[in-house]
Structures are given as C-alpha cells and as structure tokens.
C-alpha cells in the first residue's frame, strides 16, 4: 500500500514539476482561451444584450478547444523519451498510475481556465450570479474534459496528424458536458434553478473518474504494443 501511494505521489510531483519548468505549455492554452472568447464580440456584435446570450456557449466552447490544445502534454513527451514504457512496466496497475497524470494535467490546464473564466465572463457581460455558476460548472466539467481527452490522447499516441485527430475523436463525446455546462449558466442568467444541471455534471464527473482512466490505460497498452 505504501509503495502505491509513493508511486502515485511521485508521478503527480514529476508532472507538476515539469509543468512548472515549462510554463509556456501551461500559459499558451490559457491565452488561446482568452483569444477565442474575444473573437466573438469581434465576429458577431459588441452589444451587451447579444453577448450576454452567447456568453455561456462561447465560454464553454472556448474552454473545450483550449483543453484539446493542451492534451498533447499528457502523453506525447513521455512516449517520445521512453518514460511511458517505464510507467507501463511499473509494478503498479497502469490504471492507477493514470490518475495522477490526469490530475496533474487538470491542475495545470483545466483549473487555470476555471480561474480565468470570470474575467472573460465579465467581458461578455454575463450577470454576476451567472458567473458564480460558470465557475462551479467549469470546476465540475473541466476534469471530465481532461478524463475524456486522456482516452483520445492515449489512442492517438505517436500518430501523425495527432492534434486534429484527437479533437475529431473527443469533441463529439464532449457534447453532454457542453449541453449541461452551458445550460447551467444560461439557467442561472435567466434566474432559474441550477441544481439539476450541477448534479448531472457532478454525476458525469463521478462516472468519468470511475471508468475512463481504465479505458485510458487499456488504450495506452494498445498503443504501446
């Protein structure tokens, strides 16, 4: 048991350390998030009424796309330098070793998005009450994005055209999270209750966290074969 906790904390610490050493990898998707959100007023209309209606969807789609961009960080470097093989050969189940990797990924890509979102929400004239819902919904939804993205990244390990291919595989699977995540914010902006949406997002998170790392480990083994 001690060996397992030790291994998991080592994997987490290593990934966090690497992210700290290469801050550009963390900041770039964040800037992308901000840019995409800013494109909509330019492309549609700067009118507060219009933006307010678009804001939930725009922010969620931008968060989705930014997460897609950051998925390369999960496994690509480890695969190239042989560390992924060593993880697959460790005396612990690969399914369990995947958890700290995904957690580190979310802490360095999803969580920053959540923290930046209020700023962008203000730019898009989202009412204050809805901003709180947005943060909560993203907090529940971005880990699911990391979990789903991990399966896609594992399946496309080492393939040419990797980034776009992962998006093609994963984006259709994201639609439920998008629907309920944006729905929660829209409901909040309209003064309606959000418990149902947030509970569903929470349920997605629990199911994803229970099932997807196993699928990711299976996908990694298939790709390493």
């Amino acid at each position, binding site marked *: 048991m001690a060996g397992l906790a030790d291994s998991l904390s080592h994997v987490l610490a290593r990934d966090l350390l690497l992210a700290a050493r290469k801050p550009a990898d963390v900041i770039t998707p964040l800037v992308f998030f901000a840019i995409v959100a800013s494109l909509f007023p330019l492309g549609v209309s700067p009118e507060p009424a219009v933006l307010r209606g678009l804001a939930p969807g725009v922010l969620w789609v931008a968060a989705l796309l930014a997460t897609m961009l950051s998925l390369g960080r999960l496994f690509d470097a480890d695969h190239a330098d042989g560390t992924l093989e060593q993880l697959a050969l460790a005396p612990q189940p690969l399914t369990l070793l995947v958890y700290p990797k995904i957690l580190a990924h979310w802490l360095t890509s999803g969580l920053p998005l959540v923290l930046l979102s209020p700023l962008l929400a203000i730019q898009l004239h989202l009412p204050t009450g809805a901003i709180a819902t947005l943060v909560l919904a993203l907090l529940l939804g971005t880990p699911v994005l990391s979990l789903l993205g991990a399966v896609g990244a594992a399946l496309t390990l080492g393939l040419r055209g990797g980034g776009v291919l992962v998006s093609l595989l994963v984006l259709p699977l994201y639609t439920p999270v998008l629907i309920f995540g944006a729905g929660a914010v829209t409901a909040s902006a309209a003064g309606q209750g959000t418990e149902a949406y947030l509970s569903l997002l929470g349920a997605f998170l629990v199911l994803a966290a229970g099932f997807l790392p196993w*699928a990711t480990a299976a996908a990694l083994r298939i790709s390493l074969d």
Partner: protein
Amino acid sequence: MPINYKYAAPKNFYALAGTLTPWLAAATVLLLAAGLYMALFVAPPDYQQGESVRIMYVHVPSAWMSMFVYVIMAGAGAIGLVWNIKLAEVLAAVSAPIGASFTLLALVTGSLWGKPMWGAWWAWDARLTSELILLFLYIGFMALQAAIDDPRRAARASALLALVGVVNIPVIHFSVQWWNTLHQPASISSIAKVGTPAIDPSMLWPLLIMAVAFKLYYVTVALMRMRAEILERERNTAWVAEVLSAR
C-alpha cells in the same frame, strides 16, 4: 460447439459467406421492392403532412440502422479485443462505412422531410442532432483506423473507441433530447413523434418491411465486404492463392 469454431476460421467463413450472399441479396431486393411499393402507393398520406410523410419510410429505418450498426460494430470490436478473433475485427471494420452511410441517409432524408414542414433545409431537432453527432462518431472511428498503419493496433484502438462511444451514446441522446425540449417549439419535434405506439397498421407494415429490408441489406453488404477484406488480409496464405487461381 464445433460449428461455431469452424466458421471462425477465415477460410471457412469465406466459403460460407459466398454461399449465403446471393440468397441474402435476392431477399434484400425483394423486401426493398415490396417495402417501397407499399410506402409509395399503398400507405395512406398523412392528414397533416400529405404525401411528404412517405419519406418517413426511409428516414426512420435508416435512423434505426445507424444505431443498430454502431452497436454491432462496438460489439464485434469488443469480441475482437477480448478474444482476439480476427473475423470480429473484420466485421467491425467493414460495418463502419455502412453505418455511416445509413446515418448520412437518415440526415439527408430528415432534411428532405423537414423542408416542406419547416421551410428550411435543416433544423436542430433532437433526432437530427443526435444523428449528426453519431455521424461524427462514425467518422472518428474510420479516421482512427485509417491513421494507424499496424492492422492489429488499428483494430484494437478503434474497438476501444467504439466501446467508449457506445457507452456515451445513451448519454448523448438524453442530453440532446433535453436540450431540444428546452430550445425548440413543440411543432418541430412532432417529426420525432411519428413511430410512437398509436400507429396505424397501414403505416406500420411498410415501416417494418423496410426495416427488415435494410437489415438484410446490411448483412448482405457486410458479408460481401468481409469476404473482400479477408482475401486481402490472408493474401499470403495458400488457400487464397488457390481461390484466386481458380478464377
């Protein structure tokens, strides 16, 4: 059971499929003809939609098939993944384009059906949106298979993707259904209501015949494509050399 294992070998399956295909093809053509005749000439026009309701007899079975083939694809992929049976992998691979075609057919016929009703070529109603996402899932499956050179890895990776997809599909359906009831006025979702329990036998029969015809079509084409795929995969073996030289 001896019979099952015998036909799991590509060579025997190839022969069996070859014998069955002409009969299945004939049955498909017959049923399709019967179904289309009934749909176009026998079934009554709808009191609301008039003659354009006849598109339903192609649209609804295609939508059913698009789901059915995906489930078969995922199931075959799972069998190939767990028990390493090559035929299962072949079935999954050949099913994808057929399923995608049914999905595309459902989308096109849905659009054609909707034009007289909505006055527009497209509407984001629950069924069409679900079918669109399903089409993306099929394309993703085929793209992944195409991107991987090693046939074993390609089959196993796409099987895993199909399994993740099949678990997700009910979630997607539910989400899109919910999203649709929130945003769309009631009249548009009436298209989805056709096919609910209180359907008249004069409409039910053509629908069922078309559904069975489409299933037979799938089985026929799948078997034909599997034979071609098996020939290619086993091209270095003696029995394939014999088959080719016998032509």
